[in-house]
């Protein structure tokens, strides 16, 4: 018992950390979100999501996040399959290449894309030099999705790779042996067995994409507001912490839903490696 109690104390620093920086701020969000400026209880800040501007921002956020998640999935799945089939050190190198950009600051990476995509940016300069018509991608939803995919792709690749590399090669062989063609084997065996990784990957891409405000601010210009931008502005420019908190609570519902989804499907913790 004593040794157990001693070990429990080892978690004290973290408990303190999470109390100060997670629990207390969360309580404050709920306090501000459910009160008005006089401190009286109100649901107005939550219902505010239904006003035209806010609803539009939320819709756009969900749409772009879904698009980002889909693109990430389509890019990551084939790659994860290739990685999972590779033996030895080769795949370690490819994984490293994938994770490498993650070591660079997230803001820097997004700023780099801004420079690349700008009207007079690197890409357009090259296109002009080659005599090809310029592209107008900066300040469009496409640019935001591009930035999201670039930043969040590794979060999709790794859980998928984890899930796929756990599938016993002989299980695939057994399906083939029993008469299944390559496509049938993929649909009936590989895909269902990788569901934990898929759910985990979707969660890990969709949630940060839904709540981002940096990517949209840098690549979407001032006209394309995501729900993250709206909340950010309420806190910083409008100094309306009550409304910002209320909208945050709404967003939390989506995140909670995702967490439940991954808790149900990802029992082995494919995403916990990150």
């Amino acid at each position, binding site marked *: 018992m004593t040794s157990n109690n001693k070990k429990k104390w080892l978690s004290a620093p973290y408990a303190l950390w999470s109390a100060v920086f997670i629990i207390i701020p969360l309580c404050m969000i709920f306090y501000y979100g459910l009160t008005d400026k006089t401190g009286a209880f109100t649901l107005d800040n939550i219902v505010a999501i239904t006003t035209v501007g806010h609803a539009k921002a939320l819709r756009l956020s969900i749409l772009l996040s879904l698009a980002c998640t889909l693109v990430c999935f389509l890019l990551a799945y084939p790659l994860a399959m290739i990685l999972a089939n590779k033996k030895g050190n080769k795949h370690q190198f490819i994984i490293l290449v994938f994770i490498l950009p993650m070591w660079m600051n997230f803001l820097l990476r997004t700023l780099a894309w801004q420079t690349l995509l700008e009207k007079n940016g690197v890409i357009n300069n090259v296109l002009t030099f080659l005599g090809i018509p310029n592209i107008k991608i900066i300040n469009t939803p496409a640019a935001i999705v591009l930035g999201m995919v670039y930043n969040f792709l590794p979060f999709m690749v790794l859980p998928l790779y984890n899930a796929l590399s756990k599938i016993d090669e002989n299980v695939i062989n057994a*399906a*083939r042996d029993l008469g299944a063609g390559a496509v049938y084997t993929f649909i009936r065996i590989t895909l269902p067995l990788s569901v934990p990784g898929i759910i985990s990957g979707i969660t890990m891409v969709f949630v940060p994409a839904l709540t981002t405000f940096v990517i949209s601010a840098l690549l979407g210009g001032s006209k394309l507001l995501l729900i993250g931008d709206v909340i950010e502005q309420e806190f910083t420019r409008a100094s309306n912490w009550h409304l910002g908190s209320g909208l945050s609570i709404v967003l939390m519902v989506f995140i909670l839903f995702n967490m439940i989804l991954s808790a149900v499907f990802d029992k082995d913790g494919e995403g916990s490696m990150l």
Partner: protein
Amino acid sequence: MPKELIHLNNLSKSFDGQMVLDELNLKIHENEFVTLLGPSGCGKTTTLRILGGFAVPDAGQVIFDGKDITHVPPNLRPLNTVFQKYALFTHMTIAENIAFGLKIKKKSKAYIQDKIKYALKLVNLEGYGNRMPDSLSGGQQQRIAIARAIVNEPKVLLLDEPLGALDLKLRQEMQYELIRMKNELGITFVYVTHDQEEALTMSDTIVVMNQGYIQQIGSPESIYNEPENAFVADFIGDSNIIPATMVEDKLVSILGFRFPCVDTGFGRNRPVDVVIRPEDVELVAPSEGTLQGVVSHLIFKGVHYEMEVMAGGFEWLVHSTVLHPVGEEVGIRVDPFNIQIMNKPESEDEEAVAIDI
């Protein structure tokens, strides 16, 4: 001899420059229980994978029923495999696992239901259809893997060390079940194992392999009683392998002592190896033995005593139900029929193969 079903013709395969199979030739007949036996890395599993279609040989052909199937993908081959660690589909029920192959063949629902019932009965797991694979023990899972394979009525069932993960008692039970199933189904079994006892118990034919070469093909009795070289003798059971000289037909000089034997055709004064199984070494009174020695070790093994006898400068391994205490002087006698003469390895390469076990 029944009809020839499979012919492995000059198969060669190497991985990363390492030769795994070197011009392997093997014929497998209808309704035969063939065991590929050898230490790990001997090429037995590679041979099975080539048969199943999971590996393509660098050279040579796989002829099945007269047709070359070397490059036919596994899903189009008329054989099924039971994998080492069951390889069940964990996201499907037992019934769905068994029905997997039949659904692909577009069999009717009634047919599939009948087959599932029949297969579960064959492997003694009636009523398990709605369970998930994870809820079954290792032995049960392995039996489901067999059921899943045989419902497709393959002409040949390939088994890759299927009992390797089971404990001793279960393994022995499953050995008898496999023999029963093979007789009931009347199909060919190709079985891979490194367990010589398993091979001796179940097989019609044993193929002893080492380092990509076939060392000997024969019935369990002939492999055990008449091993062709020191590797086979040593791999299959305990044995005394002693360098000797063939003096003339039916007379061999072992450690300088002359033993009558039954082998002929080795020529005169030719160096050979002899194999004498420990149970064939008779311990008698010193005056009655061909040579004399002293018991140096004694272990009780249950059925018999295992003794080591120092005689003629060689430590003889002896199995006997009669106890001779350590230090006792004994005579050694061997029945001529129990002396197996083997050619010495011809090349250094072959010798390396024989020693490396």
